[in-house]
């Protein structure tokens, strides 16, 4: 007799700490006791998400989803559900109306995620165009070419309320309409895809291009039809070789099938695509610098206006959008703008993809409806902070954004809320920090990145960034003064006002944000000459508590510079002059005798 039922017990960190292991064992015992041990398999799984409802137990194949299960519930689950075939209503997931949901698919925002942009990632073979087609691929293009006018496409995007996913959130329909509305003078127009994803910790676009390249091809073709362009460029960094390969394969297949190139589907519309490789300069994520790079110039920003929609690539009207913006287009056109408009918040529609990284158990790509809270993303989808450490902050918007503290974890995420918190949506990087991270050290990291990536064209960015970094560096070495805080603010404001492009305008954001929310950490470094997280080496000292040290000699053996002295069974001493503050002794000590102060 084979196995006919499977029971999955969530073994994620959160659930483990709330007795999932006991539940697992109890279920095994209950199944044996009921005489069905041979037909049921009970397994522990990785994190299901939805940790606030943990522990979670899921029954397959009927997909019942039980939440907040206790070890004492196991007999009832086995006897009622498996033996008698009746669901245990009181433990089923309940929606806002307290109705028990019998099927996983009935649960709204199951696991808090909704995958529109990532709908095909991890589902189809990205190198097989027929698998994309089977998932409604190119259905939007069909509809547009044979049933819609360019005006109707713009109207549909307006109904949907899609805002650009590259960071600033400009309405996509408006941007397309600007280009479409430029009077026709017989010259070319262009469609450009900004796949220059340069934020530290961000890889959403790479994943989309690797996993679902045809959605971008289809969307750009639709953009070409709508705006009157016959040529498109995908500007992608050379550091994404797999994404480039898959794009090339996808483009070749699309041409072969007549979905790209001349006379698409016999409609008479022509559209072709080219790939242009970027060398990885962060500033080329800025649209005017990107266009300059495609033209073969140095990637430096141009003053706006005129905006690229009117005078863009080679001074021609150009529509330029981010990968994630494009990935939404085919779905909006097949399902309709009304459908998309129902997802998200009042002013921010649809979903957003985040690369959740840093001090988080379940790092990875997360796509959530706009309006999901940071707490839901970090603690439910992300499974919380490893090793029980305290949450300190989350950085959104990459080096252009800011930190969000524990006080604001329940803020619904959308463009406007993040800006009001002093951060921004950015392209979707989301880096979580815990109590062991020094806020000033993290800020310095972002500044180093921005300073390195400045194109040098304008003084506020070229000089201001370096000055900010220099002051912060001085503070983290214990040589800061309270007046430095005022100086940081002045430089930051000047950069925000006077820089030519977004790179320089946003470089001070992490500084302004951390000064606002972590004034106490700045003060600790400046006045107390202490680094509370123990990160800034010049402000940290290691010593040994003689009362706790038993003289086991482990720290002395671990020390890479031999600065710990002591006999076996006698308290050890650290030579502070030789100590390089690597922390190896702290990590090695089993008796908590090493003090970091």
């Amino acid at each position, binding site marked *: 007799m084979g*196995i006919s039922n499977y029971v999955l017990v969530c073994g994620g960190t959160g659930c483990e700490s709330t007795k999932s292991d006991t539940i697992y064992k109890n279920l095994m015992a209950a199944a044996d006791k009921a005489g069905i041990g041979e037909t049921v398999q009970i397994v522990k*799984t990785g994190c299901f998400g939805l940790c606030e409802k943990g522990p979670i137990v899921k029954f397959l194949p009927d997909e019942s989803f039980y939440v907040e299960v206790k070890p004492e519930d196991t007999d009832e689950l086995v006897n009622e559900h498996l033996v008698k075939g009746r669901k245990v209503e009181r433990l089923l997931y309940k929606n806002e109306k307290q109705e028990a949901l019998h099927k996983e698919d009935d649960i709204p925002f199951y696991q808090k995620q909704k995958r529109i942009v990532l709908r095909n990632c991890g589902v189809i073979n990205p190198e097989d165009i027929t698998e994309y087609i089977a998932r409604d691929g190119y259905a939007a293009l069909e509809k547009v070419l044979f049933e819609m006018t360019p005006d109707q496409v713009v109207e549909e995007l307006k109904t949907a309320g899609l805002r650009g996913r590259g960071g600033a959130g400009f309405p996509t329909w408006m941007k397309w309409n600007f280009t479409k509305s430029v009077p026709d003078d017989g010259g070319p127009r262009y469609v450009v895809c900004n796949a220059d994803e340069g934020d530290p910790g961000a890889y959403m676009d790479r994943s989309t291009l690797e996993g679902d390249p045809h959605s971008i091809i289809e969307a750009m073709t639709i953009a070409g039809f709508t705006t009157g362009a016959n040529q498109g460029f995908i500007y992608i960094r050379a550091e994404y070789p797999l994404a480039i390969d898959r794009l090339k394969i996808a483009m070749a297949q699309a041409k072969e099938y007549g979905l790209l190139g001349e006379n698409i589907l016999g409609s008479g519309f022509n559209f072709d695509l080219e790939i242009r490789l970027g060398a990885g300069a962060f500033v080329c994520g800025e649209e005017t610098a990107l266009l300059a790079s495609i033209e073969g110039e140095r990637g430096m920003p141009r003053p706006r206006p005129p905006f690229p929609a009117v005078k863009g690539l080679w001074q021609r009207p150009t529509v330029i959008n981010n990968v994630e913006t494009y990935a939404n287009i085919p779905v909006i056109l097949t399902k309709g703008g009304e459908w998309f408009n129902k997802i998200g918040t009042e002013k921010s529609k649809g979903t957003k993809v985040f690369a959740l990284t840093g001090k988080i158990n379940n790092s990875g790509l997360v796509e959530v409806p706009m309006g999901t809270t940071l707490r839901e993303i970090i603690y439910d989808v992300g499974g919380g902070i490893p090793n029980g450490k305290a949450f300190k902050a989350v950085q959104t918007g990459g080096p252009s954004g800011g930190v969000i503290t524990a006080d604001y974890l329940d803020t619904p995420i959308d463009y406007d809320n993040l800006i009001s918190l002093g951060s921004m949506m950015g392209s979707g990087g989301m880096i979580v920090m815990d109590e062991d991270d020094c806020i000033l050290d993290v800020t310095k990291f972002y500044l180093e990145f921005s300073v390195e990536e400045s194109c040098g064209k304008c003084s506020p960015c070229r000089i201001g960034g370096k000055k900010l970094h220099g002051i912060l560096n001085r503070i983290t070495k214990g040589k800061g003064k309270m007046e430095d805080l005022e100086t940081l603010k002045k430089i930051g404001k000047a950069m925000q006002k006077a820089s030519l492009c977004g790179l320089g305008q946003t470089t001070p954001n992490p500084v302004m944000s951390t000064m606002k929310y972590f004034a106490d950490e700045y003060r600790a470094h400046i006045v107390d000459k202490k680094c509370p997280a123990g990160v800034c080496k010049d402000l940290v000292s290691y010593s040994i508590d003689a009362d706790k040290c038993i003289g086991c000699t482990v720290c002395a053996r671990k020390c890479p510079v031999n600065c710990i002295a002591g006999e076996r069974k006698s308290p050890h001493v650290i030579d502070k002059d030789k100590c390089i503050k690597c922390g190896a002794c702290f990590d090695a000590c089993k008796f908590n005798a090493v003090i970091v102060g």
Partner: protein
Amino acid sequence: MAKMSLADLKALRDQKRSEMARRTSEGKIVDIIIGMGTCGIAAGAKDVLNTFVEEINSKQLEGIVIKQTGCMGLCHSEPTVEVHMAGMPDTIYGNVNSEVARKIIGDHIQGKKLVSGHVFDKPATDIK
């Protein structure tokens, strides 16, 4: 395949869609789908792919199709492998290495038992 007309595209979509649905329900084919995005490959997905191929060849198993797909978003559990097979729930396995791949063949596909300790849930249901 020559350039398609509108009718060709619709026909291909219907055919491919029913083909994929039929395969899953009739159960003559087992699909092993390996996440082969950059993060999967960096985590060792190519070794996993090779192990599946070797194991299937050495045991002379038939009716198994190995496919690649993009990143499922479960980056903390790469490499990820999904198995579609009649009589078993669609299953996503995480933290798959060569040893786990052999267990997927031996326990899951041949023995019809889930490989404990590596089962993950899909990150979201399909939009509809």
